[in-house]
């Protein structure tokens, strides 16, 4: 192996700022997408177990569509194909006037994809809670909205904290697919460093370490939220199931 190691390269300018910019874009993209995906996924997941058959079917289609099409294909469809199939004026807006179009469309795409996965997690939580709490809530005079808001969803969230945490970690890694439509996030920037210096091992190691740091930070946040949820009202996950 005649590779010449140069770890100093990742601390040299401009490469250090490329990597840090990439880190910033990755965090911003993923957090924004999560902020959209979590409420949307919760809504879709709830409606899938709701009282209206038509809406249940509609939400099932939504989940099928966004969960079954590979993310990289979805990115391409949103960025290149979507503006061509909508009315001309809208397409023109999307192509020419949208601020930072690749970031905006990448974020939207990631959010919709993740929301479909979150919807399935929430639904599994709602189903695991069983019919007992639902019937009890409805029998005590709650509306469907109140039953979900105060009884079923809090139970579902407690039950599904582990898979939701995985999903939260996954969104940061999935965000790297946005490089295919030109978002200069962490992976794209480390490719950039590789291409300019040929010090690929160092650049990709730096990216790996940064992704690992993000993951640890996320685990910390998830742990804190989990503790908070378990303490709420003195009911932990175990109690909620029984």
């Amino acid at each position, binding site marked *: *192996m*005649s*590779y*010449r190691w*140069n770890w100093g390269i990742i601390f040299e300018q401009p490469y250090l700022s490329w990597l840090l910019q990439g880190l910033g874009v990755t965090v911003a993209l993923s957090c924004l997408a999560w902020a959209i995906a979590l409420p949307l996924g919760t809504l879709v997941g709830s409606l899938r177990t709701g009282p209206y058959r038509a809406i249940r079917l509609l939400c099932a289609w939504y989940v099928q569509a966004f969960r079954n099409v590979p993310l990289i294909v979805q990115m391409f469809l949103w960025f*290149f194909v979507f*503006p*061509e199939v909508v009315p001309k004026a809208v397409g023109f807006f999307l*192509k*020419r006037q949208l601020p930072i*179009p*690749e970031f905006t469309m990448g974020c939207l795409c990631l959010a919709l994809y993740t929301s479909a996965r979150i919807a399935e997690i929430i639904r599994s939580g709602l189903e695991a809670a069983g019919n007992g709490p639902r019937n009890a809530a409805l029998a005590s005079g709650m509306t469907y909205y109140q039953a979900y808001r105060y009884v079923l969803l809090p139970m579902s969230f407690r039950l599904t904290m582990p898979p939701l945490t995985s999903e939260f970690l996954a969104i940061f890694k999935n965000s790297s697919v946005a*490089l*295919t*439509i*030109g978002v*200069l996030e962490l992976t*794209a920037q480390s*490719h*950039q460093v*590789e*291409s*300019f*210096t*040929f*010090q*690929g*091992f160092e650049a990709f190691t730096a990216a790996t370490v940064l992704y690992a740091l993000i993951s640890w930070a996320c685990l910390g946040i998830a742990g804190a939220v989990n503790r908070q949820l378990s303490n709420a009202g003195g009911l932990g996950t175990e109690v909620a199931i029984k």
Partner: protein
Amino acid sequence: MRINSLSLGLALAFAACTGGGAFAEDLTGTLKKIKDNGVITLGTRESSKPFSYIDKENKTVGFTVDLCNRVVDVIRNKISAPDLKIKYLTTAPAARIPLLANGTLDMECSTTSITLSRMHQVAFSSPTFVVGARILTKVTSGVSNWEDLKGKIIGVAQGTNGEKTVKSLVETPAYKGTKVITFADHAAGLLAVENDRVDGYVTDDIVLYGIKAGARQEAELKVTGDPLTFETYAIVIRRDDPDFRLVVDTALSEMYRSGEIAAIYKKWFEPLGVPMSEANVFLYKIAGFMP
């Protein structure tokens, strides 16, 4: 490396003792490796037309591949191994350096540009081709040079020098309000021009001619503008292997000097309607070193 320089030193000492008569040359580095293995591996690309790509018959061909094949002919002669085989390995850009470093590849024959920062890691042969960053746009766009792109949207290829140059260009006051979008590959860049997402797509001119030739509506597109930057492509080899580099450069120089290069150039670039650029005419004159 230490052993190699030792053996080279021994060879020199031997030559000095025998008065420099019959120089029994010891092969070193890559030359020794390929002589021992009986095979030389060339790193190529899947679709860097017309430099290095896989054609419809699934064969690796192209301008740089032809140059490398000629270089291998000279190597066969040099190491007296007429049966030396050529193996082509399609290599993604990010994999070329590790594969070169660990000995999988012996030469990388595609469209890699010479830069000083890259020379910390690898060595380059003499230049093989000069390109300039220019603009691909629609014939109807009214764009004919860089000034016409003021306040418009420019697409660039990710990870190219053209990208950096365009980005610093649009930061000058005259180009205020000009937007730049990066694209991960040329297919996306072409699509963006066709769909009016960008007013111009900027990358190496020869690549733009290739993209244009492959476009569905070729007649609607044009390559325009003065070259913004110049870059030189070269064959990539391992660093610290001066003997191998000398053989490669010798082979290229002979091709340039003898005019053989003109025929190879014509073969690959005439179909694209690109005559030999002034920069390349001079390159082949300058790099055609005397024996």
